[in-house]
Structure formats: structure tokens, C-alpha cells
């Protein structure tokens, strides 16, 4: 654990309220960002952000044995996000249920040659957002944490408590689904 994180953790475990506030300040934006991308709306992202910190405080004794603090926090946030998704998922259609079209070639490379151009295309961006939201929770998390938030596979594996190979697999499947779905959308 980083030195500044370690000192903070020691103080939180000792019941220092100001240290807990400092923890909130350090990680609230990161948690909110991940939660918003996972759940797609402010209310749920806010709920995940609040509940994550409450649960961290509840489990503050465990913090001493944590090797990677951001991973521990991320685990709590993502687990709760997945819980919420599963609760709200009734009625939604997963990409898994979409018809697989083997002949459809991915046209993304031809249509979008750089991220900058992609940002300008709201139609495509809306489709990308929708596609991400339709991914199963674990695959969605892999995409969000790896591609958007910039976590390494090792960090994600630590957060999700699974082997790196699983993270890699989830990432690969998620990207394949996104490509297929978007190719179908813009054919």
C-alpha cells in the first residue's frame, strides 16, 4: 500500500473522522464515475457512491490487511453496482439475447478513424452508451474499468477478486459484443 494511503488507513481504523472525510474526498469522484457508467444515471451513481463509503467504514477493520486500497474501494463499489443492476435489470434485453450475425463485418474502423472524430458523432456515441449499458455486469465492468478508467487487468482482477485471465476474457467478450452490435446498428 502507498505510504499516504497507509497513514490514512491507520487513522481511519483508529476511528479518526477527519481521515474518513479525507478518504471520501480522495475517492468520491472515481467511484461516482465508475458507478455512473455502470448504472447510467445520477441517482444510482449517487446511491453507489454513498453506500460504498458507508460500507468501507463498516469494514474499516479490514483495511489494515488490504494491500491495494483503490482496489478494495473499487471492489465494494462494483459489487454494489452489480447488485443494483441485477435488481433493476428485469425487463431489459441483454446483448447476449441479440441475434448473432456472423456475416456482418465490423465497420467501425472504416467509419471512425480516431477517438476525436467519434466524440463528434452523437449518434454513434448514443449507440455506444446503449451498447455498454446492455452488457452483462461483469463484462461491462471490464470495459469501464479497463478502457475508460484506465485500470490494469491486475488491478481489476484484485478488485473483482478473480483471475486476470477472467478479466481478459470478459474484456474480449465485451468488445466482441460491442463491435457486433454497433456494426449491426450502423450497417
Amino acid at each position: 500500500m502507498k505510504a499516504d494511503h497507509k497513514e490514512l488507513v491507520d487513522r481511519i481504523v483508529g476511528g479518526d473522522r477527519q481521515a474518513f472525510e479525507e478518504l471520501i474526498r480522495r475517492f468520491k469522484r472515481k467511484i461516482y464515475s465508475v458507478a455512473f457508467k455502470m448504472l447510467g444515471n445520477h441517482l444510482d451513481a449517487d446511491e453507489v457512491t454513498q453506500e460504498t463509503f458507508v460500507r468501507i467504514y463498516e469494514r474499516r477493520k479490514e483495511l489494515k490487511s488490504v494491500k491495494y486500497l483503490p482496489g478494495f474501494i473499487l471492489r465494494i463499489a462494483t459489487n454494489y453496482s452489480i447488485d443494483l443492476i441485477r435488481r433493476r435489470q428485469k425487463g431489459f434485453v441483454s446483448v447476449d439475447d441479440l441475434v448473432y450475425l456472423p456475416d456482418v463485418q465490423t465497420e467501425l474502423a472504416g467509419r471512425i478513424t480516431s477517438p476525436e472524430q467519434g466524440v463528434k458523432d452523437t449518434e454513434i456515441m448514443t449507440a455506444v452508451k446503449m451498447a455498454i449499458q446492455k452488457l452483462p455486469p461483469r463484462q461491462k465492468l471490464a470495459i469501464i474499468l479497463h478502457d475508460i478508467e484506465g485500470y490494469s487487468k491486475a488491478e481489476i482482477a484484485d478488485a473483482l477478486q478473480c483471475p486476470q485471465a477472467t478479466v481478459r476474457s470478459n474484456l474480449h467478450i465485451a468488445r466482441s459484443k460491442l463491435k457486433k452490435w454497433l456494426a449491426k446498428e450502423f450497417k
Partner: protein
Amino acid sequence: MTCNRAKFLFDDYLFNRLDPETTAALEEHLRTCATCRDALENEKALVGLVQADRTPEPGDEYWGSLEKVILARTVRRIEPAAVETDISKGSRWRTLLNYVVPLAASIALLAGALTDLGLKPRGTAVSDLSVLGAETGIASDAEALCLNVQIKSHLLGSVIMSPPGSAGRGIKVSQMTIIKDVPDEHEK
């Protein structure tokens, strides 16, 4: 390097997580393999799109209040006993204010009303006022004294039960002054 190995490395290559030797080997493969070049471009485009999906910023007001909200929620969850104790203390004070004070006021009003209706026990008052009447020289014979004392016992009782400084007390005192004149006329 095989195509499968190259594709396995795409992720780390896109995020600059490969060591220089592996990077050089992959780039060498890409120069000679058009299929892998296309696949990499495809991957890069998708990652670019996903990264372009930015989270809307909730604003300073939200971030400013969030810490307080989390702390309050934490206290409610973690230390319900403390919150309960605070609530209990508050409840006790509220109970006192809501019940004891109105009860005390009601008792005082009831007592005042009973006195005004002349229900105060007269036996004691008569003996006290007999002395008072004698000292003031209002009654010169027993009959007059008895009549006078009966009237005064009612009035003095009202005076005693009236709050200090109230209009009721002033009126009763003035009535007592008038009564003081009654025996004088009777003596004549």
C-alpha cells in the same frame, strides 16, 4: 510472432503496458500482417469510442454536500445506538414540555376556579378571618362579625388564589376595602 499471440497483446499495446522488447516484436509482426493491422485498428477505434463516453459532472454543490450526506448516513448505520440515545433525550424533554407543563397549568386553573366558586373549605377560613375582623374592628358584636367573616372568607380566598400582580387580585382587595365599611354602617 503468431497472429494469436499478437492479438493477445493488443490490449496492453494500446495502453502502453508492454515492455520495449515485446512492443518491438509486435510492431514487427504488424508490419508484415495486414489482418492483424486491421484487427488492431478495429480495436483502437472501439476503445476510442468507449473512452469518449464521459461522465457528466454533477457540479460543486453536489460534491460539497456529498461528504456531509455520507457522514450522516454512516452515523445512522454504524452508530444507531448513539442516534437513538440522542432521540431519547430529545423525547424526554418533549414529553416534559408536552405533558407536565400543561398538567401543572390545568391544576392551577382548576384550583383557581374552585376557589372562585366558593368551594374552599370555610371552617378554617372563618376562624382566621374572625381574628382578622376583630383586629380591624369591623364587627362590634358576634352576629355582625359572623356575617362579615362569611363574606370576607370568600373574597380573601379569591385574593390568595389570584396570581400576584393580576387584575383579579386588585379587584378583590378593593372589594375588601368596601366591605370594611359595611360594619361601620351596621354599628350606626
